[in-house]
C-alpha cells in the first residue's frame, strides 16, 4: 500500500515533466527511500522472471505446440483452438456456470470473512478469540482431496447435512450431490468453511491498526456497538476490502478444476460443469497443451477486462483503487 501511495506521489510530482527536474526528483527519492526500493527489488524481480518472462509462451495458443519441436518449429494454426472452444455446444453452459459459481463466491464467500472479522473484533476475551481463530483457519490446511472426501460423506444418503436438510424441509433427500440446484450452495459454503478463518486474518490486521481514539470519541458521544462497527470499523478497513474486492472480480472467469472434478457427476453437469473441468475432460482424451492455453488466454483477457472495469468504477466512487 505504502509503495503504491508513494508511486502516486512521484507521479504527481513528475507532472511538470521537465526531464532534468524529474530526474533530480527520482534521484532524491531513491536516496531518501533506498531501503524501501531494496525491499521491493526481489518482488519486482520475481514478477519479471516468473510472470512477464514466460508471457510470450501464450503464443502457443495459436500453434499446434509440440514440446520436443519447441516453440519455433511448431506449426501455426491461427485461431483454430479458439474456434473449437467457442463453437462447442457446451460453450455457453460452461461459461455461465463458471461465472455463476464465482458470483456466488463473491456474494457469500467474500463477505463471510469480513463479518467474522467484525464479530471477532468485538470479542473481549482474548482466549475465546484465539480459539475461534484457530478453529476457523484450520480447514485451510486440509488437503483439497480430503475436504472433498468429507463433503462426500456429509452429503451422502445418511450424511449429517442430508439428514439436517431433510429435517428442516421435511422432504426426503438422497445424496445431495445429485441435485443440480444444490451444487452451487454446497460448493460455495464448503469453500467458506475452508477459507473463512484464513481470509479474515487480513481484515483483523487492518482493524488492529485503527486509531483507538476514534472509538474513545465515539464512546464519549454515547454511540452503540453496532453503530461503531458501521461508522468506524468498516470505513477504516474499506481500502483493504476494496482492493480485495477488485481482485475477486478479476477472478470471475477463473476456476480451479480440482474441487469440481472431485465433486461433480453427470447428473449435475448442468450446474457443475465449468470451463476448467470441461477442458480437463477433453485433455483426458488427447493432451492438448495449445487448446488449454487458448482457453486460459480467453479467461485471462475477460478477467483483465473485468478488473479494469471494476477498478475504473471504484476509482470514480472512492479514494482507493489498484492504480
Amino acid at each position, binding site marked *: 500500500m505504502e509503495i503504491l501511495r508513494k508511486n502516486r506521489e512521484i507521479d504527481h510530482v513528475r507532472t511538470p515533466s521537465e526531464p532534468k527536474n524529474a530526474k533530480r526528483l527520482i534521484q532524491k527519492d531513491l536516496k531518501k527511500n533506498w531501503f524501501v526500493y531494496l525491499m521491493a527489488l526481489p518482488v519486482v524481480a520475481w514478477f519479471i522472471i516468473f510472470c512477464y518472462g514466460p508471457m510470450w509462451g501464450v503464443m502457443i495458443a495459436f500453434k499446434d505446440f*509440440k*514440446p*520436443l*519441436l*519447441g516453440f519455433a518449429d511448431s506449426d501455426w494454426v491461427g485461431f483454430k483452438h479458439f474456434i*473449437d472452444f467457442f463453437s*462447442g*455446444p*457446451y460453450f455457453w453452459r460452461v461459461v455461465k456456470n463458471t461465472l455463476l459459481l464465482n458470483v456466488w463466491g463473491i456474494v457469500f464467500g467474500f463477505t463471510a470473512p469480513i463479518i467474522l472479522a467484525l464479530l471477532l473484533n468485538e470479542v473481549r476475551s482474548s482466549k475465546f478469540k484465539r480459539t475461534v481463530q484457530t478453529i476457523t483457519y484450520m480447514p485451510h490446511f486440509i488437503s483439497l482431496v480430503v475436504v472433498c*472426501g468429507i463433503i*462426500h*460423506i456429509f*452429503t*451422502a*444418503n445418511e450424511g449429517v447435512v442430508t439428514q439436517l436438510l431433510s429435517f428442516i424441509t421435511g422432504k426426503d433427500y*438422497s*445424496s*445431495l*450431490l*445429485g441435485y443440480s440446484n444444490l451444487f452451487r450452495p454446497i460448493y460455495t459454503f464448503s469453500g467458506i468453511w475452508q477459507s473463512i478463518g484464513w481470509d479474515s486474518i487480513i481484515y483483523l490486521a487492518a482493524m488492529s491498526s485503527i486509531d483507538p481514539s476514534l472509538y474513545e470519541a465515539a464512546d464519549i458521544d454515547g454511540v452503540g456497538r453496532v453503530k461503531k462497527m458501521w461508522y468506524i470499523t468498516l470505513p477504516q478497513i474499506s481500502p483493504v476490502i476494496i482492493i480485495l474486492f477488485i481482485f475477486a472480480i478479476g477472478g470471475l472467469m477463473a476456476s480451479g478444476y480440482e474441487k469440481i472434478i472431485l465433486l*461433480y*457427476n*453427470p*447428473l449435475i*453437469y*448442468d450446474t457443475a*460443469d465449468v470451463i476448467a473441468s*470441461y477442458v480437463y*475432460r*477433453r485433455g483426458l*482424451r*488427447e*493432451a*492438448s*497443451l495449445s*487448446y488449454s492455453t487458448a482457453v486460459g488466454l480467453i479467461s485471462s483477457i475477460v478477467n483483465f477486462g473485468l478488473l479494469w472495469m471494476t477498478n475504473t468504477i471504484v476509482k470514480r466512487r472512492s479514494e482507493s483503487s489498484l492504480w
Partner: protein
Amino acid sequence: MNRTMKPLFTLLFISILIISMVTACSGKAKNEPDNTVTQEEGVSKEKNEVTFENISGDIRGNKAPTQEQIDEVNSTLNDTYLGDVFEEVIPSDYSAYPVKGDVVLDVWMPANSNIPDMNNHLVQKQVEKLTGIKVNFITPPVGQEADAFTLMISSGELPDIIIDPGRYPGGFEAGVNDGAYLDLTDLMEEHAPNYTAWRNSDETRRKTTVTDDGRLLGFYGIAPYSEWIWFGTLIKQEALDKTGLPIPTTIDEWYEFLKKSKEVGYKAPLNYGSTYGQIFTGIINGAYGVWDWTFLDENGKVAWGPAQPKAKEYLATMQQWNKEGLLNRDWATADFNQRMASAISDDTAVMMDSPDTMWSYWKVQNDIDFVGALNPVLNKGDKSSTTYKNFKRTGTSAAITTQSKNVEAAMAWLDFNFSKKGWELINFGEYGTVHLVDEQGMPYYPENSYIYNDPDGQPVDVTLWKYRWHSWPNIRDEHHANPLISAKGSYSGDIRKNWTENMDTSMAMPPITFTKDEASREAELGNQLSTLRGEYFAKIIMGELPVDAYDKFLKEAQSMGLDEFISLHQAALDRYNQR
C-alpha cells in the same frame, strides 16, 4: 538380409565363428583388435551359438533345490528346464548376451509407489547379471509423473529408454513423428530377435504392435494369451442362500432376484454405479445391445452404443429398478470409498467390479464369499457378451529415444524381456526364494515363497512389485504369475476364466489409432458426446427426465456430429484391418 558379403568379411566371419566355437561355453566372442564400423556389422551378424547342458531333470518338480542348482538357474542363461507351456513357443535367442563393453542405459520410468528405488530392484540386478547391461533408472516423484515427463521432453535431454511412451502429447506415434522416439522398423529383426519372433507368432499380436502404415515404434507388452475379462457382476453367496434363487441369467431373472433380495433384507441390492461412470459397464446395457461407447456391429462396422435401437427399453427398465429401490440411492454420486463401504454393508447383494478388487474387499478383509455371474441376456439361452477384451496387448510399452547413445544395447536389454528366461525372471522373480518350477516346466510360487512370506513383512500387493515386475514391456503372464490370482484359495481367477470362456467378445473394438488431424477432432467430439450421454442417461435413470427425453438426446448427438465421430472411428478401423 540379402547383403552380399565381400570375401574379406566372409573370411573374418568364418574365423570368428571358429573362435566362438572354441569359447562357446563362456558365450563371449573374442574382441577383434581393430573394430572398424563395417567389421562391427560383420560381428553382429554372427550368432553366438550357445548350447546348454539340459538341466530340466534337476530343476523340474524339484521342491528343494540345492544352492548349486539355484545359482545355475539364476546366474546362467540356461533355460532348458522351462517348458513350452503356451500355444506359441516363447523364443530363446540369447546370442546378444552378455553385451560387450561397459554399457549403462538411462531408463525413465514412473515408479510404483511401493518401490520408490528402482535402481536396487532385485529383478534388475539379475537382468544385469544375465545381459551384462547396467541400468540407471530415472524415476519421477510419485504423483508428478506427467509434469516430469513434459519437462524432460521439453528440455530435449532424453534418456536411452522411456517406459510408458504413450504419455507423449498425442500418443506414442506422435512421439515418433516429432522425433522424440526412434522408429525401430528396420532394426527390429536384427537387434530384437525374440520380440520379433514373439510378435509374429500370432496375427493379433502382429496387428496390435504395428502402426497403420506398417512401422514398428517400440516394444509393447504382449501376453501369451488374451487375458481374462476382469470386469463383471459379482453376487454375495449369502444373498443366493437367503433368496434360494439360482444365479440369474436373463434381465427378467435379475429383476426377480433383486426384488427377492430386497424382501430378505438387502435395502439396495444392486450397487449400480458411481461418479466414475459406472452406469456404463456394458453389463445391463450390454444385454440390450446399448454398449457404452463404440463397438463393432454384426457387420464388423463401427457403431455407437448409446444410439442403438433398444436404448429406450434399457432406460425404461433402469428407471423402473431405480424407482423400486433396487439400486443404491447414491449411484450417481458415490466415490470409490463410498462404493466399497456399501459393498461390505448389509444393504448390498451385488457389485459390478473386478473380482480381484472384490476378493480383497469382500473375502480377505471381511470374509464374504461371492460368485461371478455372466452378463445378463434378454432371452433365455442367448450367449452373454461383453466389450472387455484384451487383445493380447498387456503390461506397458517402451520406446528408445532418438538420443540413445547405444541403440543396440537398448534393444538387447528390452529384447531380453521377450525371451524364455526373461518371461521366467520378470514374471516370477528369482528362482529358489520366490519361485520354483513344476514338472511341466512352469514356474510357480511355493507356499513359503517370499511373495507370500516377505522377510520384511510386506503384504502381497507390495511383494508383487517388490520381487517381480508387475507391469512391464514383456511377455506378461498375468494368469500364472499374479500372486493375487495364484494365491491358495483365491477364486477370482476362476471367475475371470469362466467369464472369458463363456462370453462373446466379438463386438469389442480393437486398439485403433488416429492420425494427427483425426485425433484432435475425435477428442473434441468424444468429449461432447460423452458429456451428453452421461447427463441424459443419468437423468433418465434417476427419473428426472422421462424416457422419451432419449429422442431429444439422439437429435442432439446427431447435431453435434455423431456421424462424423463414427466415420473417424470407421476410418481408423479400416486402416487397422489393413495392417
